[in-house]
């Protein structure tokens, strides 16, 4: 994004902001405690716009809900950008001092008149105009998003389009204003922090920089590979080409979580060798040659995680892991020992202290301080540093000393999986309040809210199909077909269907989804699948 990848704001800032664009996020269900902060913002007078194809339980709270077509986010963002410029509401002084590339951006969005934006997104022009004006005129404003932005084939461009809006209006780098991606897992941010990215070392340091490699090599006492690694979508392609024949899977369930799941399962089964390290005997683990039973990170082992406001926090062992399962760190250390590396068995804190030596943004975060302060937000370069509440204050510093931030114009490209006569319904996916991802953890407790695995459609579509709620239907995409019960939901319009991702054993939505992925982030297009729905009886 703008330098290191992390949300620019602290949660508390949304409590005093003036305008909130909640874009592609059903935070009310997927990030309920973030939504508590957001609600405080509404109570304090913030105006909220919710951009989502569905009228979700989050969108219900918004001053205006914009029910866009799935995958038309860039069209909407560019229309908003153009309207802001056309109305003269862009922040000229900020653009001048802290950015470059404005002219190119302005030119790129010029064709995105309100009329065109309305036509492509499906949202009335007047509402787009209102959102553009309110966002641009606000003293403080935030754009918050989650997977509705990033689970698309053009995820990175979607994010860029939102960043451009913040640069256009100066809504970044000041308290209360910023860009807020809320992460889906408790350590997505921390994984990035720790270098679990194809081209980064801990602290977002580039693996291709010789000086960076030299620093790590001096501490690690070995050589760091020069080349960029592969993200998961590239790995899958490499497996298709038999370039990857062995896999070590830690805490992931790609046999169910990846798009076009049937295909991925075939690839995993065809590997020469696969090790799976997990707390459950997942579908992936069942395909593995060796399974390492692991301890549950958050309750059975020690360590740190980083949240969506860049706060590094301690996790602690509260219960002993069952049976022969072991802490991930211990498993890896044992493995290293068998492979002939004399790492010994460092504690989580010792590993963390090494991170602090090598990553300046984490340097000031001792376990003692993390404990005392309830976590610290990076960058935190030394032990006297209080942590950083919001990023990019430097863009407002006088005089400007940092590199200006670039506008990056984006083109709208519709979803890869087009609607057609055979596949007339747009299926999108999402989360429910009481469940989590593929459900392996969350199905362990008796939630009174648990919904049956099903496809949801607009009541009108259900009526047109001639089916009743609860009836079994066949849902077919260009990649596969599943039978699931159907339910009707008012939050959906005709032509739009929804499935939650939590019960792949009953309704494997990823048999349908498209594995077209974003070349920059490697995320597959989970959010936009073309399907047709038929009464199941007609098929049998």
């Amino acid at each position: 994004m703008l330098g290191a990848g992390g949300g620019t704001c602290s949660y508390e800032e949304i409590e005093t902001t003036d305008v909130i664009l909640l874009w592609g996020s059903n935070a009310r269900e997927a990030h309920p405690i973030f939504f508590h902060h957001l609600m405080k913002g509404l109570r304090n007078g913030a105006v909220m716009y919710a951009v989502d194809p569905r009228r979700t339980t989050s969108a219900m709270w918004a001053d205006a809900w914009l029910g866009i077509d799935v995958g038309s986010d860039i069209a909407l963002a560019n229309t908003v950008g153009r309207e802001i410029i056309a109305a003269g509401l862009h922040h000229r002084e900020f653009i001048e001092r802290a950015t470059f590339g404005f002219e190119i951006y302005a030119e790129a969005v010029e064709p995105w008149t309100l009329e065109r934006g309305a036509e492509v997104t499906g949202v009335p022009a007047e509402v787009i105009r209102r959102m553009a004006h309110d966002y641009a005129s606000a003293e403080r404003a935030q754009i918050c998003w989650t997977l509705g932005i990033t689970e698309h084939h053009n995820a990175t461009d979607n994010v860029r389009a939102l960043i451009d809006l913040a640069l256009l209006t100066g809504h970044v780098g000041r308290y209360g204003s910023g860009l807020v991606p809320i992460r889906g897992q408790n350590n997505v941010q921390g994984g990035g922090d720790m270098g679990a990215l194809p081209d980064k070392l801990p602290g977002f340091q580039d693996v291709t920089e010789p000086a960076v490699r030299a620093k790590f090599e001096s501490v690690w006492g070995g050589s760091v590979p020069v080349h960029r690694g592969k993200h998961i979508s590239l790995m899958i392609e490499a497996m298709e080409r038999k370039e990857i024949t062995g896999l070590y899977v830690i805490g992931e369930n790609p046999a169910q979580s990846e798009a076009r799941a049937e295909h991925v399962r075939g690839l995993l089964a065809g590997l020469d060798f696969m090790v799976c390290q997990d707390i459950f005997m997942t579908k992936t683990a069942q395909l593995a040659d060796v399974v390492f039973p692991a301890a549950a990170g958050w309750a059975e082992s020690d360590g740190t995680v980083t949240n969506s406001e860049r706060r590094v926090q301690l996790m602690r062992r509260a219960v002993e892991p069952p049976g022969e399962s072991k802490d991930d760190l211990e498993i890896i250390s044992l493995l290293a020992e068998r492979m002939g590396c004399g790492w010994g068995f460092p504690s989580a804190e010792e590993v963390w202290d090494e991170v602090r030596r090598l990553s300046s943004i984490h340097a000031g975060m001792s376990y003692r301080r993390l404990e005392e302060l309830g976590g610290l937000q990076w960058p935190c370069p030394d032990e006297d540093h209080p942590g950083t509440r919001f990023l990019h204050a430097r863009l407002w510093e006088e005089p400007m000393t940092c590199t200006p931030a670039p506008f990056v114009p984006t083109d709208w490209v519709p979803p890869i999986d087009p609607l057609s006569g055979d596949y007339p319904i747009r299926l999108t996916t999402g989360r429910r309040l009481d469940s989590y991802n593929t459900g392996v953890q969350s199905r362990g407790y008796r939630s009174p809210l648990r919904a049956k695995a099903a496809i949801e459609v607009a009541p009108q579509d259900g009526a047109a199909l001639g089916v009743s709620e609860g009836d079994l239907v066949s849902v077919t995409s260009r990649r596969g077909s599943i039978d699931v019960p159907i339910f009707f939901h008012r939050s959906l319009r005709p032509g739009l269907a929804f499935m939650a991702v939590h019960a792949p054993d009953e309704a494997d939505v990823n048999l349908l989804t498209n594995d077209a992925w974003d070349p920059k982030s490697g995320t597959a297009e989970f959010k936009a699948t073309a399907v047709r729905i038929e009464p199941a009886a007609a098929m049998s």
Partner: protein
Amino acid sequence: MDALLGPPKSVWEGGPLQASDHRVSFGGYRRSVENRRLLLPALHAVQDRIGWISQGALGYICRRLTVPPAEAYGVAGFYALLSMEEGPPRRAHVCDDVACRNAGGLDILAGLDGRPDVHPSPCLGQCDRGPAVFLQRAGEEDAVLVSTTARRVAEVLDGGAVSAPSVAVPQAGDPSLRLLRRVGVVDPASLDDYRASGGCAALARAVEMGPDAVLAEVKASNLRGRGGAAFPMGVKWEGVARSPVKPRYLICNADESEPGTFKDRVLMEGDPFALIESMIIAGLAVGAERGYLYIRAEYPLSAARLEEALARMREAGMLGEDAAGSGQMFDIEIRRGGGAYICGEETALMNSIEGKRGEPRNKPPFPTQAGLFGMPTVINNVETLVNVIDIVLEGGAAYAATGTEHSTGTKLFCLAGAVARPGVYEVEFGETLGGLIGLAGGVTGTGRLGAVLLGGAAGMFVGEEHLDMPLTFEDARDRSAALGSGVVLVYDDDADFRDAARRIAQFFRDESCGQCVPCRVGTVRQEELLARHLGGARLEEDLFDDIAKVMMDASICGLGHTASTAIRSAIDLGLLEREDG
């Protein structure tokens, strides 16, 4: 419902589906906050139409207003006159409170015992012509029966017609009357007659003078609130008028519910234009754009006459964008209560208007700082406000010449019980209690005074030794009494004070909102203690005092503060000891 709220704007508010509903919806949280104030009127609309609040109806209200069902249920169940259970289309609420119970109220209840459509009721504000019955009729207007009988009530419950009782005051025609001068004399439905009898002159004068001058006259008048707290009205008004915060509100507290009180009803039924005129003068003086007139549900005739007067005044340009040619915006909305004594407490009343449970707020902040919707608010009761007319017309100083130095003007008293001519009396401050009773024709029954319940259930019993007390705020205070809402309920010496005390204890328990512990539990423990005593046990006086003291010291509002005073006074006068009681 739609008559009240207008047709729903989208499928999201319970309307039919429109194409745009798939692409946009508006309102969200903000709409829910703004609509909340419509909750009580919406509940009333359902109650009026079908006679109870069904689950389906509550659900529809919640969808229309974006109010959570649990909250709406909590609000609805707060009010005694909103029924959460299906029942007969007509319901009779028979007053068995201090004034009516021995005037036939208990007889009606006994006569109609077992009928599911008959319920006992606290004071209905008809104490001079009891026994009174309040009738709820699904699909028709509510009605009141006075001086009635069990047979008549049964007849009406079974479909019989009702006509509104007329209003009169014993002193009608007396030239010294000020507040009551038009009651029973001038047609309350005619704006022309009102004008012909001097109405609207004060408003014209006030517009001519401008807000600052009106404020100065009100301060000079030294008028003190007639609602019980006796707070100087000018100070209240000035606090709001000088506030930099907008919008500001004016509220007329017409939730007259203190047992034994009916003076505001007589003013509203007999001279509704005067109240509207007074409110306009007040609203313009303090810079409020909107006024609320909150009237208890048990006064359907008052509400109807005020609605009518409001419409006439609006037609005449006295309200609206340019109210009475002042250049200021001012309009009035009438709100009905739902059967809750506590809503007469000013902050509870505000919560009720806001669509919340009628629970009092802690003070400070005071309404002049943060009142209705958190904004600066003047709240005065009916009698207080109506004094403004004379203050504007004759000037504050001239007004202050009546009454005494600290109690200026005239005062309305509600004479009922064992007196020859019950009714509302207007006297200059300083008249003695004995003199007032004499004005009403003296004590009836045995002809010998037993005690006077002065100030209502929240007041106290006083005996003969108080007959020489001048009725002023300062004399009452010096003699540890209070004028309260002007109740003078007279008992002869044969009265059953044990029964009266018990009814008062029952009243406070029924009417406690339940918010704070001292009052919620204290009123129960007090009633239990009294029941034990009346059942023959020794009076646990120490425990009584302990209960009384915590209610007085630690309750949130005046209900708790005064919940023991009348019973305490009855004990002190030895009224509970009489074997022949």
